């Protein structure tokens, strides 16, 4: 990868982190509010993000658009027959998301905002990821 490419990914990431902050998606309070169905805020954000995502992916697919390097864009499908994996793994993720009030993106954005305590959940998330890797063959998928 060329330096200018790194710069592009860095800029998109910066924009992403900035929006996460400004929209308060990173807030433990907003996640509490969402799971209590007390406000539309988070549903509006996720809903509109998905609608914009669906429309743009459809445009990319129907026009067989290529990426900046001229390679065809292909999105690998996920196997929906692995219901256990998505339901059990997803529920475990949901338990953590509500408990910590942050998913992976917000964990790192919050760290950038100066909340150094986020190093603890980031470290714990790495241990969690590693533990999954070790136990993977023993878990239902």
């Amino acid at each position, binding site marked *: 990868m060329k330096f200018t490419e790194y710069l592009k990914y*860095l800029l998109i990431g910066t924009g*992403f982190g900035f929006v996460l902050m400004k929209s308060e998606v990173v807030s433990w309070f907003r996640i509490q*509010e969402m799971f209590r169905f007390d406000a539309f805020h988070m549903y509006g954000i*996720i809903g509109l993000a998905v609608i914009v995502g669906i429309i743009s992916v459809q445009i*990319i697919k129907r026009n067989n658009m290529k990426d900046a390097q001229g390679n065809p864009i292909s999105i690998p499908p996920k196997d929906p027959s692995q219901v256990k994996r998505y339901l059990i793994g997803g529920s475990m*993720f949901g*338990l953590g998301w*509500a408990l910590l*009030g942050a998913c992976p993106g917000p964990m790192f954005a919050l760290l950038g905002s100066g909340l150094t305590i986020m190093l603890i959940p980031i470290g714990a998330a790495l241990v969690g990821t590693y533990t999954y890797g070790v136990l993977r063959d023993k878990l239902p998928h």
Partner: protein
Amino acid sequence: MLDLLYQPWPWYIAGPIIGLTVPLLLLMGGKMFGVSANLRHACAACNFGNVEFFNYDWKTAGKWNITFLVGSVLGGFLGGYVFANPEPIALAQSTITDLQALGIQDFNGLVPDDLFSWGSLGSAAGLTVLVLGGFLVGFGARYAGGCTSGHAISGLSDLQLASLIAVIGFFIGGLLMTWFIYPIILG
């Protein structure tokens, strides 16, 4: 104009911008938006004990994504430190009332000081939130094959049934935690 950088952004502005991350990454290099893959890349970079799941060329697979993540930290610094909103979040009053009843006292920042400070590591509740919460996010994201960005945004954008099942799982876990387990943890 500069006020806009300090103020919180409404959902109808933030949602579409977050959604645009998906086509931007696809058009830039055919990349699928997903933050939690970086946790796997970090494990692959170390891979103590030579675990098979982490035996892959993480540099080729993940350099772009790790760069994206570094950007997110930078964006957090800009949005949450340089241009931090000085006002408390305009939360629903019912949420504030519920949380006060659970013992939360600090409503000033993005997260309550009661749970998110180095001192809170000394309390059972703080330790549970920070350590168990982080662990479940990391374990669950990999088990489910993605997190909020990979499944709820990217996967649903591509109309993948697997991602819809995962998002239903996210809400099963999240509702259980919020309504039944959190009151015990904070009690």
